[in-house]
């Protein structure tokens, strides 16, 4: 699960990670009203207006503006609020800005990069930092990997003070900045651990001329598997950041991603679901979605999944590709039959069943008298559904 920068910064504050003073606004009016409050609190005129969308690359896309005075700040709010922000992470259609963060401007001395995530290769959460902060960190990683310091966290001790000192040296921080980093890092790593983060990124981390170290940005993702430990995070979801179908899928604990194509897919297992997309592409079709119903799905869940697929008006044919292990084929059959009875079936449906209770599942589908195209195997099913989506088969 992802959250906005302002929500991330509020979480940082709770853990004692220093961030600039700022006020989040849900409307342009709120943002304009926030300007004098931010100026008063910071004792300066300069404010920064930042678009709050989940995608990165906001600065380059024109979603972040530094304003020297109130008039410029108001103009920035008017320019950014409601704009469709296009960045390399939003896709060409962009994202409409519906939330803003109005923040104090700071006298930045240097910008750094700081990231935290789990390193699959070592099985340890790892802090990555670089003196080369700012927007082009991926380029730095590719061309000068030696400029990125990696510090793994020992699961038994957690982050150690010596690691903060090591980090300060590597980043070229000394004096007040080094001691500020010595407080910053334990707070940040505690936040990552306790909140079950899966990604935490500060780009840039800044030092100021008056000796402080602050998180000027906050990008936080949480481990979806650990959400049960943090029910309060549900309130931080922004429905504008998610497709309606994806929200519905989440309710049912389905792994669903909407795509551009016209072949709806219902598959069990992430690997098979990805490979089903691969084989549809191979035979010249385009999948409309990625949908993994998971291992332990009930018939109700399968029905919900089927309804999500059919609610996409772009879907011209549906491919159900199941190899049952925990998931039993009769459960899939019952779910599909119930869904079709409830919402009807306007497009061709190709079903390939294999695995646990396959005979029972096939029998149920056959006896249901639904208009289902049976597939002998995955390749057969993929070819049939691609043909059906093109209108060459019914």
């Amino acid at each position: 699960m992802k959250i906005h920068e302002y929500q991330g910064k509020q979480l940082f504050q709770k853990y004692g990670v220093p961030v600039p003073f700022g006020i989040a606004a849900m409307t342009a009016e709120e943002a304009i009203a926030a300007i004098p409050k931010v100026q008063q609190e910071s004792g300066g005129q300069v404010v920064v207006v930042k678009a709050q969308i989940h995608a990165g690359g906001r600065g380059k896309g024109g979603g972040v503006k530094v304003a020297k005075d109130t008039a410029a700040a108001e103009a920035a709010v008017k320019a950014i609020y409601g704009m469709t922000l296009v960045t390399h992470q939003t896709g060409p259609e962009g994202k409409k800005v519906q939330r803003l963060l109005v923040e104090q401007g700071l006298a930045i001395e240097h910008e750094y990069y700081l990231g935290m995530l789990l390193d699959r290769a070592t099985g340890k959460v790892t802090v990555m930092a670089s003196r080369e902060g700012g927007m082009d960190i991926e380029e730095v990683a590719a061309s000068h990997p030696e400029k990125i310091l990696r510090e793994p966290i020992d699961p038994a001790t957690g982050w150690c003070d010596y690691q903060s000192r090591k980090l300060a040296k590597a980043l070229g921080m000394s004096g007040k900045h080094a001691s500020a980093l010595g407080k910053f890092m334990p707070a940040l790593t505690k936040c990552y651990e306790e909140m079950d983060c899966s990604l935490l990124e500060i780009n840039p981390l800044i030092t100021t001329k008056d000796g402080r170290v602050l998180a000027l940005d906050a990008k936080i993702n949480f481990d979806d598997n650990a959400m049960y430990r943090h029910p309060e995070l549900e309130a931080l979801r922004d429905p504008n950041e998610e497709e309606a179908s994806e929200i519905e899928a989440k309710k049912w604990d389905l792994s669903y991603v909407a795509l551009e194509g016209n072949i709806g897919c219902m598959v069990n297992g992430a690997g098979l679901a990805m490979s089903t997309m691969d084989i549809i592409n191979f035979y010249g079709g385009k999948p409309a979605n990625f949908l993994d119903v998971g291992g332990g799905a009930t018939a109700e869940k399968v029905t919900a999944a089927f309804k999500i697929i059919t609610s996409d008006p772009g879907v011209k044919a549906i491919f159900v590709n199941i190899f049952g292990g925990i998931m039993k084929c009769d459960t899939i059959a019952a779910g599909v039959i119930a869904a079709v009875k409830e919402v009807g079936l306007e497009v061709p449906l190709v079903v390939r069943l294999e695995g646990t209770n396959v005979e029972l599942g096939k029998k149920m589908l056959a006896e249901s008298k639904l208009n289902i195209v049976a597939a002998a195997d995955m390749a057969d099913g993929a070819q049939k559904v691609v043909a059906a989506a093109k209108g060459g088969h019914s």
Partner: protein
Amino acid sequence: MSVLVGHDTKLVVQGMSGAAGAFHAKQMVEYGTRVVAGVTPGKGGAKVAGLEQVPMYDTVEEAVTHTGANTSVVYVPPPFAADSILEAAAAGIRLIIAITEGIPARDMVKVKYVLDRDYKGVILVGPNCPGVITPGQCKVGIMPGYIHKAGGVGVVSRSGTLTYEIVHQLTALGLGQSTAIGIGGDPVKGTDFIDALQWFAEDSGTSSIFMIGEIGGDSEERAAQFIKENIKKPVAAFIGGQTAPPGKRMGHAGAIISGGKGAASDKIAALLAAGIAVSPTPAEMGKTLAKVLSAAT
């Protein structure tokens, strides 16, 4: 011959009184697996319907003491699964196969750390995996047993359902399997490709290997290098997610930590460079290995 599980396996089922645990325990018994005990805290001495012959215990330690169990399979729900894995290790179980899907990464970081530190001889397979099967001898996990056939192909896979797919294809082609190992797709897991490849290399009953990888991480790339340097037996592979849309990546940090690796194209290139045949679609995995084998003879 085979690896990990076989006639010597004496299995304890952790979470046997739950719906998934009970269903799959019955399936394993039917397949011929020696299921010697079940464990669910608070259910010691109880009977699980359809599994009345299998004694239930409160702790894995009791199960080991009374039945000599040497392998455990974990069906415990995610909030308690990490604890169950460590309980099995502490009770002297040598092979722990964790089926549970959805264990928080934070918990698995700790489990892996403790296993590496205190239980060097213990093998963990999973979590979030279909399990391990030696056809005709022993099935531990959730895979449908009937698709398997005893033979010489060692299978190792990051994806559960794709494991069934390859096994089904191999069996249809008359190619039996020595052992099929699902290692699971979680970021923090026990057995990785290289471990399984090493076991298959040393196993006299394994004459060829099929490996199924997925996008993300760099363990397929490392496995390709390992195969090139260490494996003399024929190997074929498939990588899932060739057409997965970008955007599932985690900000900049994901790209940085793996040094730009993780795309299907990178993995396929690494495998081809190591001389490994790569199946173009998931439907041709079996045929791809069959071709390699017929070219070798």
